[in-house]
């Protein structure tokens, strides 16, 4: 740096327009090297905590939701025979980060029987729907007056067989869940979550 120096220049402050006179070629190259080196060192030092921070901050991206499994939800006999759905809690062990919850309600399903009249009453096939609205994920309720499913958030309406009642903010019908009746009379449901707000029924990862 071929700067004119004053011994008592400690208080001197170059004004923004004040240019430092150009050094000779060698000095210039040296300064350029110093600039690059300063940027590299400073960059490396600063990037270390940033990188470590990002590594941990993005940890949730590694997480996958538990694989869908069949869970017993109710006794087949407890589903009304008249075709009106009934809500049942889904109970399972749940892992929330570090806490393990044993047998906790983790959601709800609606179970209903297809209406069969006569002596066969109550033997109709069982259908299961997730209680989560496919529109925005609110909890769908039963409207006992209009005899349909209704979402309290944006008024999505579905018939008791799960199909959409137009006009509806929901992009698709209610999410039917695989289910079957076991020999011991338990109704087991394949518990799954789906992405909301889209027309397709895509299971959450």
């Amino acid at each position: 740096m071929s700067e004119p120096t004053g011994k008592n220049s400690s208080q001197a402050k170059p004004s923004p327009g004040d240019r430092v006179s150009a050094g000779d070629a060698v000095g210039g190259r040296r300064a350029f090297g110093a600039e690059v080196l300063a940027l590299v060192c400073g960059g490396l030092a600063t990037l270390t905590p940033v990188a470590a921070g990002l590594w941990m901050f993005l940890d949730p991206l590694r997480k996958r939701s538990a694989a869908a499994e069949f869970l017993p939800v109710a006794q087949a006999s407890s589903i009304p025979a008249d075709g009106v759905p009934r809500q049942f809690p889904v109970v399972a062990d749940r892992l929330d980060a570090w806490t393990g919850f044993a047998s906790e309600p983790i959601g709800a399903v609606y179970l209903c029987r297809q209406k069969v009249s006569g002596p066969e009453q109550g033997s109709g096939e069982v259908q299961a729907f997730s209680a989560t609205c496919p529109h925005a994920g609110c909890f769908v309720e039963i409207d006992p007056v209009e005899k349909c499913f209704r979402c309290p958030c944006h008024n999505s309406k579905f018939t008791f067989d799960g199909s959409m009642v137009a006009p509806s903010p929901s992009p698709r019908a209610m999410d039917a869940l695989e289910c079957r009746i076991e020999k011991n009379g338990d109704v087991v449901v394949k518990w799954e979550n789906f992405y909301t707000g889209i027309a397709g029924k895509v299971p959450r990862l």
Partner: protein
Amino acid sequence: MSTIHQQKNSDSVQCKPGLLGQLANFFDDRTGYRALVHETLYERVPGGARWRYVWGSTLVFAFMTQLITGLVLWSSYSAGAQSAWESVYFIQHEMAGGWLLRGIHHVMAQAMVVLLALHLMQVVIDGAYRAPREVNFWLGLVLMMLVLGMALTGYLLPWDQKGYWSTRVATNLAGLVPVLGPSIQQVVVGGSDYGHHTLTRFFALHAGFLPATLVLMLVVHLSLFRKHGLCARQPIVRADGMFWPDQVLKDAVACLAVMAVVLGVILMPALVAMLEGRPIVLGELGAELAAPADPSLPYAAARPEWYFLFLFQFLKVFEGWGASGEFLGAIVVPGLVMGAMFLMPIIGRWNLGHRFNIVFTLSLMAGIGLLTALALNEDYCSLWMDKASLAEADALYRQTEGDSKKVAEALGGDQAKIAAMQKKFATLAAFRHSQSFLAAVAEAEVAGVRAIELASRPERIPPSGALELFRSDAKSQGPRLFAQKCASCHSHVDPALPQATEQMAKSSAANLFGFGSAAWVRGLLDPLQVDGPGYFGNTAHKDGDMVNFVKNDLADRDTWKLNDIEAVIAAMNAEAGLPDQSFTEGTAALIEPGRSLIADTQRCGSCHTFRDNGTEFGSAPDITGWGSREWLIGLITDPTHERFYGDTNDRMPRFGQTEKEGQIEIIVDWLRGEWYRPRATKQAVAVQSSP
């Protein structure tokens, strides 16, 4: 400056700017950022850039690092008595890179304290506190206290034994401040006792109040620094330099070096493990996590972080002065020292005063160093002390129990010898203190490892928290409970060990080591052992029916073939059903015949009830399910029950009446070796949990 910069700066003036240049101009017209950047970078450094000016910059860098790592830690930390330890465990052992992030935050905090000391010394030695920089010096001192405050509050946040017990001491000391002390203590602790609000408040202090204040102060500190310019080292002999890139390069290299040291400290154990061929467990790198905080379990290994050790040691100077001593050591003297430091700019107006300041600062550092060394020596001296030289003193001390009259007698009244021996006794006491500290540290480490092992079970931590999980763990709690409740009568020592004879002789009831195992039953049925101290020897049953039976009937080879005895052993062993029990085919075949022998009313069944052999309770304990969990719980709950010893019970208390729920189960599970064992190594568990 470089020609490059000249070109850059003149670009906008001389030629038509490109798209980027236009954009830059757009923003410059509206913000004036070029002038700002220029002012920031092109500061003149009188006398040229120097390494001694880097400390301030490294401190800013360290603080930025703490800010970045701290914010990300915040995103996964949960301040609550049942979630703080748990969330830190999760960060450290389960989240990707959590160990590294927490390690950087933890080690950089310590680096920051070192850098603070260096910065302070450089400022004092260079006289940078003199006019017009007094205010900035005072700001610096406030910043220092803020950093120390953050270090103190951060230590508690993991809510582990180490942080919990060390911080309790600190808050208790705060209570010594006159008039306001108790109120300050209560406000900081969030009540009269440690709990949820202690954590939420410490967290708010650590991540909110203190850093926000620090940032404000730092902005003023830096702008004042810029206003005054760098206080150059006198006399100036070299040409002036520029902040950019000369000083910035030195600063950047220093920051990188600090970061390298921090990473080195974190990764060193991994390197050692690699060289020794051990597997590297990432969760064990970086910052330690002790067992979860337990207010009911004092922690002898509690020490403040090393940079506060000097205060810890300083308090000992006033030992024996009572509360006023603590008040002096924790409040008055540190307050006076801080006061003297605040006065430095005034004292430093005179040349002599400046010299005094330098000497004061250096002696302060030396004093802190000395106190720290003393504290470390007290705790670790047994590591380097010559134990052999203390053997004689140790023997004499045990013999005389330290009684000065007896010591004088033993030494023949020789005053010189007595004085020398008293000195040796003092050394011996220091040695013992250090040994018990190191033992406490080792015990704490074992507890910490076990707590983490339990937390990483597939079921993870119950909603009630890790402490409850830890407290109900037979492996770690069993020995403690046994020592408290059972060891006054029962011994628990492997008979094969050399100290077994001595320990068993001291006990008044059976040795419960390996209770339920084949070896234990074999000893019971051994005529030589049954009335020994390991079984009935020290009890009222020494000459009872069982001893008589083993010594006479069982020794009769006509009625009791050796194979019969083996069958009884196998059957009893099977009754106990110990968790790590396995039978060879040959032994397994003996179980049923053994059961028949036991049930036989001509043999064991003549006194003992066994299954449905019809023998009534009263003459001897029912041995159906002998040694099983249920049987042991029943026995310990009430040994006087007719199913067990009834009227013949010898001194064993009915623990069911005195013990809290779950305690007997813990002891039983521990005796039976029934506790959680990780199936795979930690790394394997970690891999399983992230499909």
